[in-house]
């Protein structure tokens, strides 16, 4: 029957693509959907050095390899935005924004991942995408020889700062805590001569009239000193928010918006599975997302088999 599948996978990041590979190899009829493109957050990663056996390569390169792997195995893929998932017991329905397409499926694997979190301070909306960016690889080139501020101190912030400091004249890091990234990367960044780090700061606003011109922030320590740094551009890396709005009514998301799963990647709703960054977990990495995808596909295939 058209539009009827054994397993629909929502999200084509490393978790979704691995789930698709395992599901199709378990003889399931599989559909993988993504609103934007295959790859998920991987595509914004300049360099991946910790995916076992892959050596050093760009996130996009790894994403392409994974996607091509799914296509070689015959996984059906479409660019669609899922807006609702309904639990009808033995059958689930997945509704997409485009033409209100509805898919009927025995099992759903949710692998929608996360999106970059925003600060929500004055000036952020005004300069979003015209001064404030969330992707150094995409927008860094225009700041060659200019001054840039990076907000955040985690892995993404530090890795992207190393790249930006190599092309900008001056790079200022403003972070809520101290640098919390991989110690080797933090040391490399601290050694760069054009980098200034302001830890324990709260961003107050982004300023400018016809273009972004600076960032105002204050210390979270007792002195609460306010500072203003002029800049040509800002890159924000303050973590990620779960992309779980489409399945809010299934009652499987926690207060942070993530899905609680068991060790088989099952949610509390039979036939609904979670995988990757969208699930409640300690370590969000490509390799752990792939692992989740494999486990979720295996569990989903077992679930589908129970109807045969």
């Amino acid at each position, binding site marked *: 029957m058209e539009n009827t599948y054994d397993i629909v996978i929502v999200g084509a990041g490393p978790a979704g693509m691995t789930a698709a590979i395992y599901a199709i190899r378990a003889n399931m009829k599989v559909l993988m959907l993504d609103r934007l*493109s295959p790859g998920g957050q*991987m*595509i914004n990663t300049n360099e991946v050095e910790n995916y076992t056996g892959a050596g050093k390569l*760009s996130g*996009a390169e790894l*994403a392409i390899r994974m996607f091509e792997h799914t296509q070689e195995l015959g996984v059906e893929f479409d*660019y669609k935005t899922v807006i609702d998932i309904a639990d009808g017991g033995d059958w689930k329905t997945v509704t997409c924004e485009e033409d209100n397409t509805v898919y009927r499926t025995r099992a759903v694997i949710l692998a929608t991942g996360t999106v970059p979190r925003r600060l929500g301070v004055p000036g952020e909306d005004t300069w979003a995408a015209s001064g404030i960016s969330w992707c150094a*690889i995409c927008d860094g*080139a225009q700041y060659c020889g200019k001054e840039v501020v990076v907000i955040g101190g985690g892995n993404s912030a530090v890795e992207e700062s190393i790249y930006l400091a190599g092309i900008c004249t001056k790079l200022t890091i403003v972070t809520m805590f101290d640098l919390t990234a991989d110690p080797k990367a933090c040391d490399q960044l601290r050694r760069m001569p054009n980098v200034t780090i302001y830890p324990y700061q709260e961003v107050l606003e982004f300023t400018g009239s016809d273009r972004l011109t600076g960032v105002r922030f204050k210390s979270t320590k007792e002195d609460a000193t306010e500072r203003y740094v002029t800049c040509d551009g800002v890159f924000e890396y303050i973590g990620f928010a779960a992309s779980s709005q489409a399945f809010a009514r299934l009652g499987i998301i926690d207060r942070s918006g993530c899905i609680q799963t068991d060790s088989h990647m099952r949610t509390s709703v039979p036939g609904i599975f979670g995988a990757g960054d969208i699930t409640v977990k300690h370590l969000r990495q490509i390799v752990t997302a792939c692992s989740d995808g494999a486990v979720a596909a295996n569990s989903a295939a077992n679930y589908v088999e129970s109807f045969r």
Partner: protein
Amino acid sequence: MITEISEHEYESLDQSSPKLIEFYSKTCGPCKMLSFVLKDISKQKPEFPIYIIDFDENRELKERLGVKGFPTMLFFKDGKEISRLEGLKQKPAIINAIDALA
């Protein structure tokens, strides 16, 4: 149809016909993934011309067209830029921008 061109070849294009010009960079992940989306659109609309231009190797043209980052998609009709999309965008948004040129 997707064709890679240089700034020199851009000058000799038929300026009046509707077209999509995409600036990309070889180092950019979202550009690589956008290429999958554009290939899919090209299958759907094989007659619509899509030209891709290397941002890093065609600096004069990107300056002239005010392209600051990549990927950037410019939608042209009758020699005028009708709209532009910056960054990796959803397929329906790109289709809508193409359909608006009709």
